């Protein structure tokens, strides 16, 4: 039998104004197990807490009921108080007689009656409480970063600088991501390569960082602090540790007509290639879909010219198993397909391009060596039309684009317009916009410069139709402010395509049991207060996998994710929530119902030998809950047909005792 103490709080007049606290204390004295009952003005005050501690000692209490404000307010406080008095903190129950009683009822008799009933329910529950101890699990002091763009690079560097080993998994042959494809960066206009490539080198040289390029995560098991990850390293047919990146093979490869994905298909590359000069790792990769040697065994030129002997046509995919304490998702974004927006003639004319293609066209390392030339005929365009919000801010019923604002387009378009006017003052630049959204440090100033100093024609309105005719693109658009329909003969049309999460994110989220929104962006544990954590413990979010972001935001979020990871890896042990599910093996049928509803994969099965009622032994399959993974939702307890699965802290018996107390 428990020895329960009841403490009724006045909360000044907050409770005492509507609830006769003395009557409550008196009534609860008669409840089973209650050996002491009292009231006090402010139970959460130091004096109140001291009184609780004193009473625990004096009355040898084994359980405590506090009738006070919501447990969401002070449950933690009173648990600490109990612990300080030598009680198990989980022997405390709160009866919420403020938010759910005194504050919503006006009359004293009604409030008092309800407070007593709520108190009785709490007493009934405490009678069945058992001391709970949080489980502990070790932490593997190594982090995995999935994605090697600027987000992944920054997160990895920050974690590694704190002294923890980090692995980066990047599916492309090089790290660098989208930022490596950009020309200049807003609002300061530094060259993307100039600020990114040193970081890439830092990553390559950091003794704590390993890069798995041309690799993907293929399986994730385990839980926070203890992830078991399988990484699939695709065969690149070049020995990474032998290749010196000299490029002789690239030069000699006879198959030179492969669309170059780094330049978004605007020029070609050989079948063996290094994506760009500053690639990390700087090693060649053979494209198996293009290489004649791999396709039909005819060629082998690259092996012959490679003095280092790095070419290996027999290379196989490799699977690497590694343990990690934390996982950071940094899978990034892609522009959406323009197939459903062909009123802009993207599929009809080479001179209708996306903004990312425009970046490559103006990049010194791009297909035109930085000269702004039209893809169709290599001529300098004299009239350029930029179209904003292509596929962004669409109604879901339209089933074409995305409902969200892609956030970065206004700024990069201002950049494109400004740079164009700066370098080619004879070019007319039109920007059709719905709204210009430039919240951010020095952002609006930047946009205003484009308008005021560079005389970019910003027109409020949208382009309705692009008609390629001869070597012109006839652009039909509306100018809402002058209430006119405009017809512009353009040489180049640039579409600010909406951005969407990388396609690899969805299967990855499934592997990680991390949740996503309908747009396939990863969801945060809390949108405001825990923005870099996924609801799944030990999984963190960095960069555009969580939502559209520009580079400064991405880098700061990457740093924030790193600091969360460091905070986790710095611990030797993790304390769990003790209110987790557990299975009574004697009753468990091993039927898998619980496993099916568990959102965390916390339940596994094992075969165990049992003595049966007839004194024989039998091997049965029974469920086991991993307390470090279980988050304590209780879905399994209801799915379990035999009632073997129960939830500590919210046991079937406890909840039914509460029901009984309320209905008595």
């Amino acid at each position, binding site marked *: 039998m428990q020895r329960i103490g009841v403490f009724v709080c006045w909360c000044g007049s907050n409770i005492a104004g509507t609830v006769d606290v003395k009557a409550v204390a008196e009534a609860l004295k008669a409840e089973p197990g209650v050996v002491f009952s009292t009231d006090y003005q402010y139970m959460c005050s130091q004096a109140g807490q001291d009184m609780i501690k004193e009473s625990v000692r004096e009355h040898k209490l084994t359980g405590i009921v506090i009738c006070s404000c919501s447990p969401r307010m002070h449950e933690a406080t009173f648990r600490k108080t109990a612990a300080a008095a030598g009680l198990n903190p989980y022997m405390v129950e709160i009866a919420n007689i403020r938010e759910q009683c005194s504050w919503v009822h006006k009359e004293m008799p009604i409030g008092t009656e309800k407070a007593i009933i709520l108190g009785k329910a709490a007493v009934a529950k405490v009678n069945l409480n058992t001391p709970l101890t949080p489980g502990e699990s070790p932490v593997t002091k190594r982090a995995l970063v999935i994605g090697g763009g600027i987000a992944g690079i920054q997160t990895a560097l920050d974690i590694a600088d704190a002294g923890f080993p980090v692995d980066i998994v990047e599916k492309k042959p090089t790290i660098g991501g989208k930022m490596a494809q950009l020309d200049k960066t807003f609002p300061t206009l530094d060259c993307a390569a100039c600020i990114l490539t040193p970081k890439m080198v830092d990553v390559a040289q950091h003794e704590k960082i390993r890069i798995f390029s041309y690799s993907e995560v293929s399986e994730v098991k385990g839980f926070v602090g203890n992830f078991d990850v399988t990484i699939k390293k695709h065969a690149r047919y070049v020995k990474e540790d032998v290749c010196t990146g000299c490029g002789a093979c690239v030069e000699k490869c006879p198959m030179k007509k492969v669309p170059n994905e780094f330049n978004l298909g605007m020029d070609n590359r050989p079948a063996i290639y290094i994506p760009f000069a500053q690639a990390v790792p700087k090693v060649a990769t053979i494209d198996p879909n293009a290489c004649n040697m791999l396709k039909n065994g005819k060629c082998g030129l690259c092996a012959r010219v490679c003095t280092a002997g790095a070419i290996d046509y027999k290379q196989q995919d490799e699977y690497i198993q590694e343990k990690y304490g934390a996982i950071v998702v940094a899978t990034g974004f892609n522009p959406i397909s323009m*197939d*459903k*927006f*062909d*009123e802009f*003639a993207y*599929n*009809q004319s080479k001179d209708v391009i996306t903004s990312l293609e425009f970046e490559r066209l103006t990049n010194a390392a791009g297909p035109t060596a930085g000269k702004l030339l039209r893809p169709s005929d290599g001529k300098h365009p004299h009239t350029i039309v930029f179209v904003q919000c292509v596929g962004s801010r669409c109604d879901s019923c339209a*089933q074409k684009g995305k409902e969200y604002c892609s956030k970065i387009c206004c700024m990069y378009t201002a950049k494109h317009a400004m740079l164009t006017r700066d370098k080619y003052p004879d070019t007319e630049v039109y920007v059709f916009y719905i709204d210009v959204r430039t919240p951010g440090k020095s952002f609006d100033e930047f946009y205003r410069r484009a308008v005021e100093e560079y005389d970019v024609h910003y027109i409020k309105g949208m382009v309705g*139709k*692009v*008609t*390629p*005719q*001869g070597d012109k693109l*006839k652009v039909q658009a509306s100018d809402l402010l002058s209430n006119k329909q405009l017809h512009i003969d353009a040489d180049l049309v640039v579409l600010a395509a909406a951005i969407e999460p990388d396609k690899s994110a969805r299967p990855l989220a499934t592997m990680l049991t991390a949740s996503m929104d309908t747009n396939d962006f990863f969801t945060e544990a809390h949108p405001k207060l825990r923005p870099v954590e996924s609801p799944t413990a030990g999984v963190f979010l960095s960069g555009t996998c969580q939502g559209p972001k520009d580079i400064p935001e991405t880098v700061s979020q990457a740093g924030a994710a790193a600091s969360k990871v460091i905070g986790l890896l710095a611990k030797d042990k993790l304390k769990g929530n003790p209110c987790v599910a557990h299975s009574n093996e004697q009753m468990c049928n091993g039927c898998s119902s619980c496993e099916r509803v568990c959102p965390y994969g916390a339940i596994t099965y094992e075969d165990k030998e049992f003595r049966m009622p007839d004194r024989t032994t039998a091997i049965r399959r029974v469920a086991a809950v991993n307390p470090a993974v279980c988050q304590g939702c209780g879905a399994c307890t209801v799915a379990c047909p035999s009632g073997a699965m129960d939830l500590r802290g919210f046991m079937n018996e406890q909840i039914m005792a509460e029901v009984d107390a309320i209905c008595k």
Partner: protein
Amino acid sequence: MNVSYFPGCTLKNKARDLDRYARQCAQVLGITLEEVENWQCCGGVFTTAKDEVATKLSSVRLLQAAKAKEQPLVTVCSACHNVVKQTNHAMQIDGEFAAKVNRYMADDGEYDGSTQVYHYLELLRDVVGYDTLKDKVTNPLKGKKIAAYYGCLLLRPSSVMSMDDPENPTIMEDMIRALGATPVVYANRNECCGGYVSVESPALAKKNSLAVVEDAKAAGADMIITACPLCRYNLVKNGADIPVVYFTELLAEALGLKEDANE
């Protein structure tokens, strides 16, 4: 395969070619067009107002007639097709509208939106198949550069018509290819010719029609095909200086039926 066929008013009159060739070609392609008995005009245009019931009844009767024979309903004229398909769609999704309509359907039987509506082009693509069509061509139209003109009614609203990509359609281009000619793709092929506004503002119709013709010519076309009598009328009347013919005529020519038809 037997299908219910709705020619519509214009095909019985000014656009006889569209109708005649459609029937002859269908026969060769193994499809029997059974003309719906006692059909009435489709209504010309689909009135988008939800409370407009009377003007849509003739289309519903048509659909019901096909349903009674358990056949899909085929149309050739773009305008008829648009009206019938939109009406059918309204019967499917707008319960209130369907209920109102069915109050007038006592004689014909209640209609539930279940008839499958095909445009003749869809029949060619989805039922006959362009590969089969290609095999049946006896007179490949080699060397002809043909611009398909879709206009507005055939493709839009795409959520209802769901025949092809509304901005980048291929159904007619693929047919042209199957007939051995070269399709010419041009941006204005899905822009409106001016339609019925030619009675209200001939200048507007002229401007729009010429924009289509000029675009097609600039893209190298030496002929335009269409599925809509009104499109053809507007394009020709407003000075098209390349031939504008119905797609069925082209089809007949490739299938070697045209001479017979002219007799």
